[in-house]
């Protein structure tokens, strides 16, 4: 810690001994001064926590302190348990980590119990809990479920296409236009992005249209004033500079004259035609303008003209451009309707609905802001506008601005503007920055500068490198770098390596990006392999995070960080080739994986038998295991024109075509497919898929492949997705397969994926996913790849709304509009600033060694690092070209060991006997198949009616009074109390009056609906219910069983057997010698005695 900082901190906190970097807080745990300044919580705080500064620890201590001694932070202690502290995090992982650590530090059992349900969660989870408590106020179905992101996106996509389709069919102009411009699928995709962005920004449903109209007004105003002025200024500047440059060349002078003339004409009459002329004049080829400022000035002039022309185009074609907001609004509405009817919410709903609830129901809002006495927010810089609004609503807007509001919750916001990297998802770091500024003014901004993560050599590199990278002067609003103070012991080793691309096969010609990347990946893989070789010269020694000892690195210490997971394959592959096993975290290519395709192909091969492609795919996949050779012979032998599907051909192939081995494979494949067809939908998709994996031994096969861990993980994920499919509305296997196939066609946007249990394997992940994590060795790969900034022709800007270029049919091209150009500027600016922060986040993940590696050349990162490497003492090593060639440039394929495939079979255990129903026993005794009996065909109308009569009839017979009072109205009772259909009443009443009441009314004992358990020696237990058991005055015992639907001779044997079982049960229970039995056919009033 720098001396000055220490002093000022100490001064502020009234601490004298500044040399003591760690002191004890109210509990027994050590904290540094700056951490203590937070834990004291003497005001509503904003904490800026640099990478590795012990942020989580500070938060945990703050929390624990609040719970254990609220009076120490000036709050009343009554009822200040975990339930009353809201702690919001950005990821589930962070929530868990905080909670786990709080569990460790809190000792009071009641507090610990409360922690289980305490609101320490992500924004989304918190919102879900609010909505579960207040569904009616929030206008959502109380039984709602939450759609997974993938499914929600697929649903939205489908709805977008359907809406467009319906619009086109119904003659809607907007839909026609969109489809005409982009085609149905692409227009759908574009609109999906718009709708997603609009919802993330928290806009009201109709706001895009309103904003579009407002924007038009502003464009009109700009055409009148600002735009012509800036054109004039820019062109004048160009002219002035050209004149100053004193151009000699006649050609150049000619250009100048042309511009001057065009400018005069335009100034006279600023018409579009003159603008065009002016633009053409400014376009003159660069070579002719040999003075320094020419390029920039010419561009500026042309840009200004483009804006003006864009503005005109925007006004003129507003009807056309208006199709986008109109469609976005109607698709959003349609999507909402579907969610309502399916009773589901998506992730955005959780936030939006909660915000709306808090706004529309002040009572609910009050409830929460009274309930929470303190609100802690982690990673605040990554909140999006809706989250920010929710926070404001919880705290009360005034409370944020003015600390003196009575009863408002105390709050502490932790963040780091340097680590704001979720702008592309709609996060807005500005909110954090604003809070920080306000806090600074009231002396409530705390900065954690210590770095407990990285080695001092690495911290030194950061301190030297990042001030230039994160420069507010380059990008307005860029977060400045705050110098960090290292806390670990120096090791004296190199901290940073820079692997530059030297390609020995480089012949000066530019190579495609793909092969440059492959080349880099191989070199990086070799480097990392060497790092893990304890005896080699290139070994890297790291500090074991578990025990603090220094040891040679292991693969598990390594993280390869990438900007985009779409480029992951070369790196994964290269590591595999050199024999470093790796795990890819949350790769966006899950939907493109072989194992995923294999499973889907098997299902399709079974369910769509005429389709040859899935069949071939299935046969050549290891699920069946036919060689390409076999496939070749089968297919060559097949006469496609015969019209018989390939499948028939395959499964009836003559032995001459295939070897015995291949025939065995085909036979097995056929039975797999048949079993799959028979199984489909007898169980859920998940079960069927799990069965398929077992049946084909797919998991065992995967075990023989190099990246088996990853493959197994993918299979688990696939099954888990299938398991949850029914909840998302796809219950049939075919539907599941179709939905999943759509997702493989258009992979859903990448989302935060879990860190799998990597074991001793290197992990490959995106920088975004690495946020909040640390690794001994971090390799930031592909630092040369360019930022993928691009803005679609139709895009959303949180200020300007939906902006679009206009398609010019005559030109056959898109032409810019003012709003689109402005949105592009905004986006470019934000993207560039975020890129720099991304490098910061990536580099600061390393504990001991950072490797920066480049393949493709073309990015500002590479330039920054290269420039830095030129410095006198940059503190990083760069292998020379010859070193590179010697050590890293050739990678041999190392074949992995094939694990022993022989596994033991599992013997099913014998099933144990259990309860059997009397009905089953009777069926067995009567020799009927298991599910025969009177109900087997209950679906037919007449049987169904009989079944219903039986149900009601039994109820009547069980309940009818046996000694009715004289005025008892039997028919009325049957109708009113039991609900017997009117036309059934006479028969039933007759039966009761003639048989039931006279006989049972005079019986000695009557027991109606009598359940029993009959235990037979060595044969388990039989359970059943006897309709009526009674004892006559003569002492004889009877069993009556009622049947409806008329006698049926086929079932006589069954009924007899049933009575026999009942009789046995009764006899055994009551120790009777003899029991008689009778089956009553109530409808026909007939009976049959046993």
């Amino acid at each position, binding site marked *: 810690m720098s001396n000055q900082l220490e002093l000022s901190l100490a001064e502020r906190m009234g601490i004298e001994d500044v040399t003591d970097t760690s002191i004890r807080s109210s509990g027994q745990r050590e904290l540094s001064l700056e951490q203590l300044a937070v834990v004291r919580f003497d005001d509503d705080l904003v904490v800026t926590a640099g990478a590795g500064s012990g942020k989580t620890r500070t938060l945990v201590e703050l929390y624990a302190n609040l719970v254990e001694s609220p009076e120490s932070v000036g709050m009343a202690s009554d009822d200040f348990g975990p339930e009353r502290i809201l702690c919001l995090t950005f990821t589930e992982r962070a929530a868990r980590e905080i909670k786990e650590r709080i569990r460790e530090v809190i000792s009071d059992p009641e507090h610990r119990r409360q922690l289980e349900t305490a609101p320490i969660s992500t924004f989304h989870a918190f919102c879900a809990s609010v909505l579960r408590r207040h569904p009616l106020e929030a206008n959502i179905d109380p039984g709602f479920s939450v759609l997974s992101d993938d499914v929600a996106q697929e649903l939205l996509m489908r709805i977008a296409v359907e809406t467009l389709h319906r619009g086109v069919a119904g003659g809607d102009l907007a839909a026609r236009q969109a489809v005409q411009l982009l085609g149905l699928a692409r227009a759908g995709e574009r609109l999906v992005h718009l709708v997603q962005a609009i919802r993330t920004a928290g806009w009201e449903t109709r706001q895009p249209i309103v904003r579009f109209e407002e924007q038009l007004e502003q464009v009109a105003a700009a055409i009148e004033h600002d735009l012509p002025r800036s054109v004039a200024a820019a062109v004048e500047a160009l002219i002035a500079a050209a004149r100053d440059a004193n151009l000699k060349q006649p050609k150049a002078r000619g250009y100048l004259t042309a511009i001057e003339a065009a400018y005069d004409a335009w100034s006279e009459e600023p018409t579009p035609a003159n603008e065009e002329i002016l633009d053409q004049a400014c376009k003159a080829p660069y070579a002719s303008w040999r003075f320094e400022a020419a390029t920039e000035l010419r561009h500026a002039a042309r840009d200004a003209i483009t804006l003006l022309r864009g503005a005109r185009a925007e006004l003129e074609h507003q009807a056309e451009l208006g199709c986008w907001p109109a469609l976005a609004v109607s698709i959003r509405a349609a999507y909402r309707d579907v969610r309502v009817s399916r009773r589901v919410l998506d992730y955005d709903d959780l936030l939006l609905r909660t915000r709306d609830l808090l706004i529309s129901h002040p009572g609910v809002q009050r409830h929460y802001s009274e309930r929470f006495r303190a609100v802690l927010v982690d990673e605040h810089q990554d909140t999006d506008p809706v989250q920010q609004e929710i926070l404001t609503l919880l705290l009360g807007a005034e409370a944020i601005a003015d600390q003196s509001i009575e009863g408002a919750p105390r709050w502490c916001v932790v963040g780091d503007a340097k680590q704001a990297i979720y702008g592309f998802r709609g996060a807005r770091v500005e909110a954090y920055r604003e809070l920080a500024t306000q806090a600074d003014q009231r002396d409530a901004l705390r900065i954690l500068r210590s770095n407990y993560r990285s080695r001092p050599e690495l911290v030194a590199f950061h301190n030297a490198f990042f001030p230039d990278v994160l420069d507010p002067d380059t990008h307005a609003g860029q977060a400045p770098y705050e110098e960090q103070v290292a806390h670990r012991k120096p090791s004296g080793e190199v901290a940073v390596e820079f692997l530059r691309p030297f390609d020995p096969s480089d012949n000066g010609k530019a190579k495609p990006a793909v092969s440059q990347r492959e080349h880099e990946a191989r070199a990086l893989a070799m480097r990392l392999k060497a790092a893990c070789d304890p005896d080699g010269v290139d070994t890297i020694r790291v500090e074991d995070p578990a025990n603090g000892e220094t040891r040679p690195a292991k693969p598990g210490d390594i993280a390869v960080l990438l900007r985009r997971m779409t480029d992951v394959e070369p790196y994964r592959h290269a590591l595999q080739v050199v024999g470093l096993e790796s795990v890819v975290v949350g790769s966006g290519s899950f939907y493109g994986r072989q194992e995923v395709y294999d499973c889907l192909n098997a299902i399709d091969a079974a369910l769509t038998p005429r389709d040859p492609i899935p069949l071939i795919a299935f046969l050549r996949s*290891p699920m069946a295991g036919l060689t390409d050779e076999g496939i070749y012979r089968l297919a060559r032998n097949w006469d496609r024109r015969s019209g018989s599907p390939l499948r028939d051909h395959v499964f009836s192939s003559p032995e001459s075509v295939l070897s015995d081995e291949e025939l065995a494979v085909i036979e097995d494949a056929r039975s797999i497919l048949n079993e799959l067809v028979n199984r489909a939908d007898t169980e859920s998709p998940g079960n069927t898929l799990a069965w398929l994996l077992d049946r084909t031994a797919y998991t065992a096969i995967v075990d023989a492949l190099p990246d088996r861990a990853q493959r197994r993980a993918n299979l688990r994920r696939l099954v888990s997705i299938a398991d949850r499919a029914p909840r998302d509305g796809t219950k049939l296997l075919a539907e599941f397969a179709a939905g999943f196939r759509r997702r493989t066609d258009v992979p859903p946007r990448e989302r935060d994926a879990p860190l799998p249990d990597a074991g001793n394997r290197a992990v490959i992940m995106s920088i975004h996913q690495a946020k909040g994590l640390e690794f001994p060795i971090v390799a930031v790969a592909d630092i040369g790849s360019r930022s993928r900034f691009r803005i679609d022709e139709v895009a959303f800007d949180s200020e300007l709304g939906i902006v679009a270029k206009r398609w010019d049919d005559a030109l056959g091209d898109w032409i810019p509009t003012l709003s689109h150009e402005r949105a592009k500027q905004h986006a470019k600016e934000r993207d560039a600033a975020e890129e720099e922060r991304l490098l910061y986040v990536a580099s600061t993940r390393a504990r001991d060694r950072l490797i920066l590696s480049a393949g493709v050349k073309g990015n500002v990162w590479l330039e920054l690092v290269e420039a830095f490497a030129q410095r006198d003492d940059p503190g990083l090593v760069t292998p020379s070209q010859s070193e590179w060639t010697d050590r890293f440039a050739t990678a041999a394929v190392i074949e992995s060991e094939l694990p022993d495939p022989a596994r033991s079979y599992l013997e099913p255990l014998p099933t144990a006997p259990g309860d059997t129903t009397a009905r089953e026993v009777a069926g067995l005794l009567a020799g009927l198949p298991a599910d025969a009996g009177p109900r087997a065909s209950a679906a037919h109308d007449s049987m169904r009616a009989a079944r219903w009569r039986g149900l009601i009839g039994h109820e009547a017979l069980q309940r009818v009074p046996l000694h009715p009072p004289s005025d008892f109205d039997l028919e009325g009772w049957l109708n009113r109390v039991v609900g017997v259909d009117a036309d059934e009443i006479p028969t039933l009443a007759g039966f009761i009056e003639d048989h039931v009441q006279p006989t049972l009314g005079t019986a000695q004992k009557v027991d109606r609906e009598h359940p029993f358990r009959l235990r037979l020696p060595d044969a388990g237990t039989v359970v059943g219910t006897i309709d009526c058991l009674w004892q006559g005055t003569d002492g004889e015992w009877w069993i009556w069983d009622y049947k409806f639907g008329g006698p049926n001779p086929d079932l006589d044997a069954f009924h007899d057997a049933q009575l026999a079982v009942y009789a046995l049960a009764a006899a055994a229970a009551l120790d009777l010698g003899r029991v008689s039995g009778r089956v009553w056919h109530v409808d026909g009033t007939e009976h049959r005695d046993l």
Partner: protein
Amino acid sequence: MLTVVPSRRAANQMIDRRLAEHEPLSGFGARSAWTHDTTTLRELTARAYRDHPSPGRLLQSPAPRFLLAEILEQLEPEVRSLFGPGIGLAGTARAVEAAIAEIRQAGLSALDLARATGGRRRLKALACVLDAYERKLTANDWWDEADVLVSAADRVRSGEWAPPGLDQLGVSGLYDVTRLQGRLLIELARRAAQTTIIVPFDPHHERLCAYAFPYIKMWEGVVDPGLAIDIEFLDGDQQASDLPVILRAADPADEAARVAEWIRERAQSGCALEEISVVAAGGDRTYALLARELDRVGVCHHARRAVRLAETPLLGATLMVFRLLDEGFKREHLQAWVSTALTSRLDANLLAAPLGTGPPASDSPAIWKHALAGIQSPSAAAFNTALDQVHELATREHSPAAFWRKYEHILDVVGLSETTVIPTRDRDRWEETIDQVRQSLTMLGRWDTSAVGWRTHRRHLLESLSGKSAPIGTASRGVAVLTPLDARALVFHHTAVMGLGEGAYARQQSATAVLGDGEREWLNEQIGERVFRTATDEAREAMLLLTERVGVTSGDVMLSYADQDDDGNPQLPAYALTAIEDELELEPAATSERHAVEAWRFDRSSELVIRSQELERQRAVYFAHAADQRRGQGNGFDGQLSPATTAELAAELSDGRLTHWSASRLESWRQCPHQFFMRHVLRLYELDEQPLEAEPTALGTVAHEALRRLYGETPALQKPSRDSIAAAVDAAGASLPARERGDPAVWSVLSEQVTAVLVRYFEYVGEKVPTGGRAPVAFELSFGRPDDELPPVLVTTSTEPVELSGRLDRLDRDQFQLYVYFLGALAWAEAEQVVPPPSVTGTIHCLRGPKALDEVEAPNPNKIREMIGITIDAAVDGGYDPSPADSTLCKWCDFRRACRIASSTPTYAGLDPTRGDAE
């Protein structure tokens, strides 16, 4: 002796234990028992109701829900607004029903509630609803569960009724009775000569039992010296088992696998399966996973509430009728309906393919009849009938009786009721549900009357379905998988409690949506008793339940949870678990190694598996080489063929037996040899399905054809009118098979797009192409094929000359100008590489995109010949680069799913071409 226990299962266990102890009573050696005298509260009240001489009519589920839905609909606006706008939503009735039931079980009337609202909106609103509900009940002489309980207690008190065997009363294993149930128990106790209350835990353990104290207080409150009531507690040190083992698994699937393994070990060491139980604290998901794993290890098991009924495939197929009504007759739904085995009268082999030729969506079934017109089979007839009847359901309103009759008929027609395919038990569940709807509506007088739309019927059904579960296995056969509550009072030798992650024990109470914890606390305060359960109570009960499990198990206990949930989100252990951990001073568990699940079972031979492994490994190693290293390895077009076959293929290729070369085939080869292999060697093709939107190739065909027509009419055409272009495009479109055009409405828009492109093209031709006599002599001119007039072009290769055939888009006379049209904006780069036949100048017109109207110089014809020759030579001798020229190809490739290059190699698998790399 009458014994009241928490569940039927517990009663049965008790009876069985008794039976096992007694001598057989009858001659067969059988022992039997009436199960009446060991009973549950529910059974007891059901009997009381049955024995009542003139009861009100019982509202059985889901009748109260229907009734409340009606009441909610008719509420005054002020009352509705007290609830909030969500009151009109479908699922609300269920939540309100649950809340009302809870309130009534607490013995509160509308009046009581109204007095206790304390200004709380929800309580006020509930009081209004309760009032309306009570009025309805009284007016119609209907009873609900609460009424039955009250009447039972009254009749016991007045001596009008008593269950048999009440001389002695035992109450065992209960601790959470509602107030009304409590009253009934007390009345029973008053009538019994001796009452024994067995409380299943140690009362000195304050923290554990806090939840159950009200129950104990209730009994202690019955101060009547004339009554003999004994309260017995389970003593604290009855723990016979060893210390429980804690398992911290990686994820839920792993947890299930390990628990299954644990059970198998116990079973193998001789314990009867019935003596082992699993308590699944984590809900349905845990059941499903465990059931699967137990099946894998061959352990027989059963669970009463295992899967949500509404989520079973049977219901998926059954409710498809509503989906068709709701979303229209979508092809995808129909195909799924046809291909599931559950619809046994619809033959997938016969129907699925023709359905593919229909449109992706349609509002009426007519179009499907048309698509199936050519098929003469009972299956198609059944399908048509079913669709008509589905359509009919939507066209007018029906009474429930009529609607459900028709609905069931549809199910019959498609074979969804045949028990040969559908397990009887599942079928029974469905029928039970319909019966309940019928019973409830009959009671409410709505069954035969009041015709309503299909949505109302669906709502009835869903309301009746909601919350229902279907069982797995045969009751009491094998290992019992239980919910925490169902496990109460049961005793097993070994027990595993799984799913003990955070929040595991939280009961899904639908009532909390309207009766939240705040309201509950408030009401408890007003009543002066803890009658309404809150989240805190739940947590306390969790501890109680878990402690009971650990306490009553005599053998081994395993407590487990997963480190991550299904989505990979981290999970913490439930507090109940950590509390036990602390209490028993157990070692905190470290995450266990993932269970090495045995890899396969069933009858796949190990030879086949090993073959597959080796094959797959070979592929992996082969693809581990970069594309340039793979070149020249003699593989057959990147299928891994034997050297002999590769040679055979090469020979066929070189002598023209395999394929005749054309420009487009060369192009296909150049793009990806493997694609070429699939299409031209294996002769695979994609199954045709009518798309919603025509594919780009169809648009291209139409543009070509339109140009042919236009120029065909007027060879020297320069600038045709927009109308005539549109007419030509229309005519060209009409010549395309309907299936390729896709949806007509979408097609009409797309064809306008083609028109616009052509209009622009003629603008260009008019302005830029030198005029003066260029006259086309041929369009779509085909050469080199057997029926063509023009001969093939001969290309020399290192072996034999190859004949090249092809088709020219347009050929002009004067300068032998050859035109090639491209429609896509992306096509430019490809256009530059296109190979026109020699001896003419080639012009490529890209019809769309900013560079659309430029011309390129055609390369030197001899160079082209040479290029072709080299390509073919390489194809023959295996020296080609066996990968696609451009990874974007994979994205659109028809054979993507059967291709193991795309999913194995680094270059093509991970790239997402839609997001196009900037480099």
